């Protein structure tokens, strides 16, 4: 395969003019190469159809789209009936008006009914209604396909999420949702969110109310935006991928296990923790007008009370003690520069092991940890990051074993 076709396979929609011209040049006058390329592309489609089970349902997808279309057609037909009734009424009114009008002198200019205030008002109403009909008729319903897992909208389990509708991930398994423009999101169980798009081709916006999602930007490289009440994450580029975890709690409960209360009133505010982990590409996070860029393999935690972005402190070293429950829940980290540092942990603590959410009980004494701490008036938010040499998703059964090995009681993992 020559370089020109390599560019075609790699990024055909984003090729430069030179790359595209080169592809055209090698194909022109070489029917055998064209057939080879076509065979390759058809084989790509066959492989994708075989390995992507959701594509097997194409016939039903078309029937569902047609059904939706007919709903809007019926609405349009009803409006048109109303419009034609209005026209009939207008004709009756015009006829009765003309009947009352005294016959004009022969040379006088006849009065035109469409100049009357009634006619002008009716015409304006008709114009507005027809415009509405055209807009409604031409706007296809935007839905977001559920590829895997259980999604509840209202009380119903759905396979397509209506645009803008709030939904919840039901069951114990994550739910994978196809967003517009080829992007994809995997929401963790119990997450609540909504998705909206201005159009099928527009970049989707995910409103993450609570929970966690793994977001993958589509190959088209369009922007993917995730909004929370704390801040907004934006990623673009063909390979952009990030995880956002957001939990919002009343400040009163969040601060229960937290020392460091400086006497500031906390009951009037809600507090939340937003954790952003970028896997590939980069992401922009904006919290109250402050914009930060997070690069691949970086993680950041944001916490805020009363609209103030808190300062972060980072502690790296070996995990010396682990006390994940009780009134003084904490971890102690030892590093060469500052010695032993004790960090309180609580509901606003997030543990990520090799990028995967885990419980504090999954931590192992002696292993290297990277702890980010954000202090607020009423609470402390923390993120504990661990990179283990053998990537392995924490198993709940291992959590109990680790807890036993560490000599502590097992606590259920905090919901993410």
């Amino acid at each position, binding site marked *: 395969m020559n370089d020109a076709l390599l560019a075609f396979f790699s990024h055909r*929609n984003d*090729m430069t003019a030179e790359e595209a011209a080169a592809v055209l040049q090698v194909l022109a006058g070489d029917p055998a190469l064209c057939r080879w390329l*076509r065979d390759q592309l*058809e084989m790509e489609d066959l492989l994708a159809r075989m390995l992507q089970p959701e594509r097997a349902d194409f016939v039903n997808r078309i029937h569902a789209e047609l059904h939706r279309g007919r709903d809007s057609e019926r609405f349009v037909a009803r409006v048109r009936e109303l419009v034609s009734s209005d026209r009939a009424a207008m004709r009756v009114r015009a006829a009765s008006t003309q009947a009352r009008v005294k016959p004009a002198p022969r040379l006088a200019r006849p009065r035109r009914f469409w100049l009357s205030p009634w006619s002008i008002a009716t015409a304006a109403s008709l114009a507005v209604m027809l415009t509405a009909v055209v807009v409604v008729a031409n706007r296809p319903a935007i839905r977001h396909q559920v590829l895997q897992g259980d999604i509840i909208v209202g009380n119903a389990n759905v396979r397509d999420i209506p645009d803008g509708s709030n939904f919840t991930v039901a069951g114990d398994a994550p739910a994978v949702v196809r967003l517009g423009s*080829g992007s*994809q999101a995997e929401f963790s169980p119990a997450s609540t969110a909504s998705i909206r798009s201005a159009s099928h081709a527009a970049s989707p916006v995910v409103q993450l109310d609570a929970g966690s999602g793994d977001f993958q930007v589509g190959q088209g490289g369009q922007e993917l935006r995730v909004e929370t009440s704390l801040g907004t994450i934006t990623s673009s580029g063909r390979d952009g991928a990030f995880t956002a975890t957001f939990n919002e709690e009343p400040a009163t409960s969040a601060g229960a296990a937290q020392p460091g209360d400086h006497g500031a009133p906390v009951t009037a505010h809600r507090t939340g923790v937003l954790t952003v982990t970028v896997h590939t590409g980069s992401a922009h996070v904006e919290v109250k007008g402050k914009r930060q860029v997070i690069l691949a393999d970086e993680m950041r935690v944001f916490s805020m009370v009363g609209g103030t972005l808190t300062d972060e402190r980072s502690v790296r070293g070996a995990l010396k003690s682990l006390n994940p429950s009780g009134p003084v829940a904490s971890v102690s980290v030892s590093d060469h520069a500052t010695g032993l540092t004790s960090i309180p942990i609580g509901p606003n603590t997030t543990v990520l092991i090799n990028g995967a959410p885990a419980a504090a009980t999954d931590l192992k004494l002696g292993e290297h940890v990277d702890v980010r701490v954000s202090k607020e008036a009423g609470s402390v938010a923390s993120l504990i990051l661990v990179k283990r040499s053998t990537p392995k998703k924490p198993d709940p059964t291992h959590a109990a074993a680790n807890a036993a090995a560490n000599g502590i009681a097992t606590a259920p993992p905090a919901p993410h």
Partner: protein
Amino acid sequence: MGTPSSHEDDFDRVLRETQGLIRAHIAGMGVRSDEIDDVAQEVYLDYAQHPERRPADVEVLRWLRGMARNCCHEYFRRRAKQAKHLVAICDTISSASEDELPGENDLQEAKLAALHECLERLNLPHRELLTRYYHDGRTAEELAASQGRSVGAVHMVLSRLRETLRRCLLGQLGTAR
């Protein structure tokens, strides 16, 4: 505007008989595999809403292929940075390809069934590479980084695997091209 049920039956039959071939046709014109079904959907929705536009002397499959070509052009105009070039590439590939036989939609489904067996014949690393690329949606750049290869090398391996599978399919189905 309701469609009589006989028209619906006709449409359903056409959809079932041609969808595999039309999707393959769209793929062959260069639409990315994750967007082929979106383009095919445009084709069938348009056909369902305006079946009367097809001249009586043009067979359905040929008509749908023409619509698919127009939809592909529109897709490239909307999505590709070099839309004019991509439209020209699409037409170049199309014009050089021979017309499919009317019964080839069945062949498409047979290919899909036979592909399972052909995949099983590949060695495990190659199967995993295809799974990660086509199922998991990993990019060639990601695969290259994880395997310590260049992006070009990954595309080259993918291309060779597609060619291997194509030959395997031809052997399985007893056809040659």
